[in-house]
């Protein structure tokens, strides 16, 4: 098995909620989460809202400091590394390409900004690199001087991917990269991500609530529920033989295209939901790693 590039161990995180009469209360977002990311794999993190999947992706990126636990990048804790050093290794693709691009900057400027910030190359070289990056993500360099509002959602997400790649990172964390896009555009972006992974030897962490996207893309899947990883296994195993009741619930409720199959009956699983509430979930299966 390839080496571990990102090692998330025993992360717990509490958010401070509004202070009440009896002092501050805190809300637990993550509870003892551990996850090893190996070079070259695509790890999918699935879960519903409030499961902590977005929080863990921000912690992996060093954007949030966890209450306890460590994240190691190549064996060194990211809390000891500078933002700029981390930025060269890990990049992030946001869910909503309408919000993640500065509306006041041209496309060329947006893509070359990381180079500028890191002081790499002259401005001519930066512009050249940005044009190449546009080409890599399948966009015409004619949009170099356009503004984000002139592009469609799919084109914007390609721009966001180009910006994430320009520092030549090893790891790309994608937070719901296609959920703001139309179905016909979603497959274009997923195909692009697969191509880029081959071309640049990338490792992906894909956070999503869309099970079919994760099933198609991921080599390994972590299922999160209420701040914990409840099941972690290779993708085939998760989708063909789920072990944890919550994973089963999630798979049952996913509405894949199945004419005549009807809406899954969630009345049985309502009991299951109650069951889950009473017995906090624990990890039920592991990848031998």
């Amino acid at each position, binding site marked *: 098995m390839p080496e571990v590039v990102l090692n998330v161990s025993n992360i717990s995180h509490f958010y401070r909620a509004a202070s009440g009469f009896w002092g501050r209360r805190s809300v637990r977002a993550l509870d003892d989460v551990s996850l090893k990311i190996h070079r070259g794999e695509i790890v999918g993190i699935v879960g519903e809202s409030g499961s902590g999947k977005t929080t863990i992706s921000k912690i992996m990126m060093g954007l949030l400091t966890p209450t306890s636990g460590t994240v190691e990048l190549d064996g060194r804790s990211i809390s000891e590394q500078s933002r700029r050093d981390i930025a060269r290794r890990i990049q992030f693709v946001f869910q909503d390409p309408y919000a993640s691009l500065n509306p006041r900057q041209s496309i060329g400027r947006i893509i070359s900004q990381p180079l500028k910030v890191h002081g790499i190359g002259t401005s001519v070289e930066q512009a050249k690199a940005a044009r190449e990056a546009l080409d890599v993500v399948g966009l015409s360099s004619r949009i170099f001087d356009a503004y984000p509002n002139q592009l469609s959602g799919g084109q914007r997400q390609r721009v966001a991917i180009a910006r994430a790649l320009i520092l030549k990172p090893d790891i790309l964390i994608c937070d719901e990269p296609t959920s703001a896009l*139309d179905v016909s555009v979603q497959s274009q972006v997923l195909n692009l991500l*697969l191509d880029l992974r081959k071309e640049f030897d990338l490792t992906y962490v894909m956070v999503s609530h869309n099970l*079919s996207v994760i099933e198609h893309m991921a080599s390994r899947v972590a299922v999160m529920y209420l701040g914990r990883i409840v099941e972690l296994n290779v993708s085939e195993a998760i989708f063909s033989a789920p072990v944890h009741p919550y994973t089963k619930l999630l798979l049952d409720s996913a509405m894949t295209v199945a*004419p005549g199959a009807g809406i899954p009956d969630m009345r049985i699983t*309502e009991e299951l939901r109650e069951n889950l509430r009473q017995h906090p979930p624990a990890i039920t299966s592991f990848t031998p790693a």
Partner: protein
Amino acid sequence: MDSMLLDIEKLNVTIDTAAGPLKAVQNVSLRVAKGETFCIVGESGCGKSITALSLMGLMPKRAKRRAERMMFDGTDMTTLGESGMRRLRGNRISMIFQEPMTSLNPVFTIGQQLTDVMRAHSRVSLAEARERAAFLLNKVGITNARERLGQFPHELSGGLRQRVMIAMALMCSPDLMIADEPTTALDVTIQAELLRLLRDLQQEFEMGLVLITHDLGIVSRIADRIAVMYAGQIVEDGTADEIFGNPLHPYTQGLIACIPSPDHPRMQHLPSIPGTVPPLIGGLKGCHFRERCPYAMPSCMEEIELKGHEAAHRYRCILPAQTSAAHAKMAQGEQVHA
């Protein structure tokens, strides 16, 4: 076809924009029977939401509606005027929107909002209205219905709020419910619960349901009849079995093929529809899908009418035979290109 609940013929909606007229809906005809689930599928900007809003007579400013026929249960909606439409809305036709967070007024309790809807349309006492509200909250799967009546929207979760919206839509026992992406903002487990609830209620009250969504998974499981919209037009309509079993329009085929599913080889290219939806400003000539279509040919430049039998299956394409053969290949994950 007198038994039709909703009968729309050649609906057109044009919106005036700074850059010129935008033909958001073009010649859309649809019929919904009592107790039927009619799904309008399409991507963003295809005109599906505007279609729904114009059915309700709720349209953005600067939008103009024109239709050859707009009948609701025997009454002509075009002659009703604003006050007549207001009597229909919320009473005989009700609507559920996508965003449960903003569709409820934060300063009134759930009970007030539910009873207001009913008392706006019929002379019932407050006690009766509260009785019905509690009954319906119970029906949509909310426990402690009576306590909930006194709560404010911010005290409820997203899933509960959308249930309240459904209950509100049912207050006046409507004949037709229009649901615009009712579960898109919700988690998958809650989505399944709510759709099942919606379908059960629809069968119980024999309502017509017009469901607008971009999610083909939902459509394949709930729809009796389907209309696929692209760039302001219906490109294909028919029964659910026909649309999924034998899609004839290249857009429908592409849309079905590009959804990731276990049939596709994992971590390999998915079939995709190249390009993006064309801008509707200024008007499009010929087949709207032409520029993205793998089978496009010169004759696609001409205006194409819906062909086929209305009851079973209609399509707006000149090449149904070839496309359906190619679709078999496409479904197996091969990419088809001109």
